[in-house]
């Protein structure tokens, strides 16, 4: 018999609806699992046991009284710790914000509350979402639940690890250059980076505003559709949020890809790609063909420029977004300082970790007078070309299929010495953020060490429903999500 926390979100919803289990029992089961495994995994930064159990009790009570309930009523989830919450600190896994509690909730937090979800706590991450392994957390590293000697990916490593280790039915992450998809791939769960503008960024502590999107991580595609139904929608408080007539994503849970046109860009399968990852993703491509999709190999010309463009644009925006952490109003402030300048220098030198400082320096440089044209402006031009290339491909194809990352999860510490090697991990994910299109990461096999491999399906802007349908079709064809399969 499955433990209660091993039910998927959809299964839990069904059992809750039939009153076979209560939300309080379910939440308690998750906390028991957290107590069992998280000392090793390190997924959580803050837990809100009282708040979660109180919310669960309220929902159980409403259910007994027959009152109307939201679409995620009673289901426990977790939030990446860069999403503002009034009931818990929002640390961004940084010394700068360890004591910071926001006076307002992020829009997605309000939406989850409106959907009657239960929030267990806040999840570990790379400091300010900068990193690909969650080793950059100021608080503690996260370990991959599949193999505790390995990283969970990043920056939403806590979000992926919590779902993979049954510590949450669903989690939210943020994805600036792959931060949802890559950890989802590394931990063997499903993760979606929605179209830029699909989900409100209000209350997400910004890394790179033109690239950041919040998205769900779940065990399977069905669960993802449930959560995405709650997240998507226009928010007047976020000027970049878009008004779209969103469908019910559960309607896309149909195993049918017949006639779907899928592009396979050969540059995404070139040098640097681990052969086992390549084999698994190409195998997935063949499976799509067998399922009735048309898969064509195509050539792209902009991919090699995406990574440098990404690191320039994201670092430039970060250097400005993170300037507000100056020790004046809130957050960490250095103890002794002589004057204003000294306050700034000491606070920021002591409050930020190494990787964050590296990006701030890189971004400041890229925006500096005399370098702007060569770096930031050039990167924006590249961005235009990448967008156009995607948009051209989507004139012919419904989807693009690629690996999520060139490797599977590596050992902790293995790539920490060379930042460039770590940046290369993002090579297949960053073009998607640059183009602003949606992409989903779906498990598609394992390497010989048993580490999960993820494939990336990239879709047209605001066409998440097709992504979900294709991912669901694939998942069904391989027998559904199996953590140990």
């Amino acid at each position, binding site marked *: 018999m499955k433990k209660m926390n091993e039910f998927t979100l959809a299964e839990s919803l069904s059992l809750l609806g039939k009153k076979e289990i209560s939300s309080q029992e379910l939440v308690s089961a998750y906390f028991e699992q957290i107590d069992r495994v998280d000392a090793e995994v390190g997924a959580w930064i803050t837990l809100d046991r009282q708040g979660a159990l109180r919310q669960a009790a309220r929902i159980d009570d409403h259910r007994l009284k027959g009152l109307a309930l939201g679409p995620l009523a009673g289901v426990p989830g977790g939030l990446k710790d860069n*999403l*503002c919450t009034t009931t818990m600190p*929002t640390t*961004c896994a940084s010394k700068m*914000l360890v004591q*910071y509690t*926001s*006076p*307002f909730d*992020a829009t997605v937090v309000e939406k989850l509350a409106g959907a009657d979800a239960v929030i267990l706590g806040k999840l570990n991450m790379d400091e300010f979402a900068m990193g690909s392994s969650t080793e950059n957390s100021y608080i503690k590293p996260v370990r991959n639940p599949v193999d505790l000697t390995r990283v969970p990916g990043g920056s939403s490593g806590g979000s992926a690890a919590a779902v993979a280790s049954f510590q949450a039915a669903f989690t939210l992450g943020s994805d600036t250059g792959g931060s949802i998809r890559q950890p989802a791939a590394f931990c063997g769960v499903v993760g979606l980076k929605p179209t830029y503008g699909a989900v409100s*960024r*209000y*209350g*997400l*502590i*910004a890394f*790179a*505003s*033109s690239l950041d999107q919040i998205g769900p991580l779940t065990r399977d595609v069905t669960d993802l559709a449930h959560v995405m139904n709650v997240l998507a929608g226009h928010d*007047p*408080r*976020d*000027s*970049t949020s878009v008004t779209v007539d969103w469908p019910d994503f559960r309607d896309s849970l149909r195993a049918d890809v017949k006639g779907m046109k899928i592009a396979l860009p050969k540059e995404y399968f070139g040098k640097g790609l681990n052969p086992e990852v390549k084999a698994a993703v190409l195998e997935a491509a063949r499976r799509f063909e067998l399922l009735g999709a048309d898969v064509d190999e195509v050539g792209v010309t902009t991919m090699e420029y995406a990574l440098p463009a990404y690191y320039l644009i994201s670092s*430039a*925006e970060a*250097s*400005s977004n993170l*300037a*507000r*952490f*100056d020790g*004046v*109003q*809130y957050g960490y402030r250095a103890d002794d300082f002589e004057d*204003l300048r000294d306050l*700034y220098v000491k606070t920021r030198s002591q409050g930020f970790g190494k990787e964050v400082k590296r990006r701030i320096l890189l971004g*400041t440089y890229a*925006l*500096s*007078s005399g370098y*702007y044209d060569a770096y*930031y402006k050039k990167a924006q031009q590249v961005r235009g070309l990448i967008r156009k290339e995607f948009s051209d491909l989507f004139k012919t194809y419904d989807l693009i299929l690629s690996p999520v990352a060139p490797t599977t999860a590596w050992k902790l510490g293995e790539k920490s010495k060379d930042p460039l090697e770590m940046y290369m991990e993002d090579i297949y994910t960053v073009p998607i953020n640059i183009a602003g299109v949606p992409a989903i990461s779906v498990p598609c096999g394992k390497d010989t060490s048993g580490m999960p491999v993820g494939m990336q399906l990239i879709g047209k802007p605001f066409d998440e429903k097709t992504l979900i349908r294709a991912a669901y079709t694939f998942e069904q064809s391989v027998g559904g999500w199996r953590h140990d399969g």
Partner: protein
Amino acid sequence: MTAKDFEVVMGLEVHVELKTATKIFCGCSTAFGAPPNTQVCRVCLGLPGALPVLNEKVVDAAVKAGIATNCEITAYGKQDRKNYFYPDLPKAYQISQYDLPLCHGGYIDVEVRGETRRIGITRIHIEEDAGKLIHDGEGTLIDYNRGGVPLIEIVSEPDFRSAEEVGAYLRKLRAILIYAGISDCKMNEGAFRCDVNLSVRQRGSSEYGTRTEMKNLNSFNFIQKAIEHEAQRQIALVTSGGKVVQETRRWDQTAGKSISMRTKEDAHDYRYFPDPDLMPIVVSTERISKLASELPQMPDERKAHYIQHYGLGAYDAEQLVSSRAVADYFEQAVIGCSNVKLLSNVMTTEIFRLLGDQEGEERVPAFSAADLRDLVNRIEDETIHMGIGKKVLSLMWTGAGHPDAIIEAQDLKQISDPELLKLVVAEVIEAHQKAVLEYLDGKDKAFQSLMGQVMAKTKGKANPKMVSELLESAIQTMK
């Protein structure tokens, strides 16, 4: 080389706080004078996760300013971040506009010494104001109420050659913005602030000298003094073989001089880049037409009307339209006025003197425009003469009531009875033989003194024209 061989070249940057009810990126009030940090929220405090949403009324106001100053409107604009650290700037960047300002390429015509000078407007852009630092004895406190209040920055071409031109331009610009209903331009509340870029060069040169920037001059008086001082400083420097350093200077009014704040070497690199949190600003031609139709008659239109219909001089007309409240008052007083030129004179001399410097707000006399008109009519119909008119006016100013009532109560009616005046003149001539002889000797001043004696004897009420004639003829008979 002497100072006369030099020409001063200036360009202005004027920051104007807009009169919108709410701030540029959030719903906080813009009202002035609230207790510190009571008009703030997560957005204008720049808290992590909060996002700006552009107040479209700010765009409307800036576009109106552009139309009123003959600018082109940018159809597809954007907003940029200007990055620098300072405690009054909670995000450590100011949202402004860099290379695509909302308005560009306009001009304003001003009257200076009987000449019309056209001053080019390079650009008008929108941006957010910063908070305010308050230094008390123990440390520095920050009031963020002003943070996020919408501003427009109006940048002129380097078209100014004298402090007088600067003054005329600022008064005109201020009038235009008040007419358009965009801002109250209250200088004492910091709603109209001016930076002056100034350089000097030898007359005839086409190259610009090295310029300095003087920041935040918030009174017409200070601006005038700051310009004179800085021009002299630069000329003295250049003529003594020195070089002007490109720098930002702060005008210290109490010390009566400017002080260097920072030189070019430690000037900020603002690292402008497009703000990714905000969408492009799209201004359609329909929107421009609609905003143009909402603008009231502008100062230049009224000025032209005054010149054409009332025969006023360009300078006087410009003076009258320089404040919307004053122009409105003038237009009310014109109704039923038997001498509009005289009315204009009274307003631009006596009334302006009584009102004082119009920097703080738009002020008009407390008494009605109709009362002023009646006073002018009494002068025109010779019930009183101009000198008594001034006296009546000053009594009206203190709230003494209608001019007729004052004239009656104070017995100020002009004495125009020739017989009566002849007697007084005879008395004065009798008593001041010495002055009479001096006048006959060719000393014109002596005549004025005799006039004064007659006026004194009649408590100033004698008809000056008649007194003058009677005196003259009486003295001539003595030859």
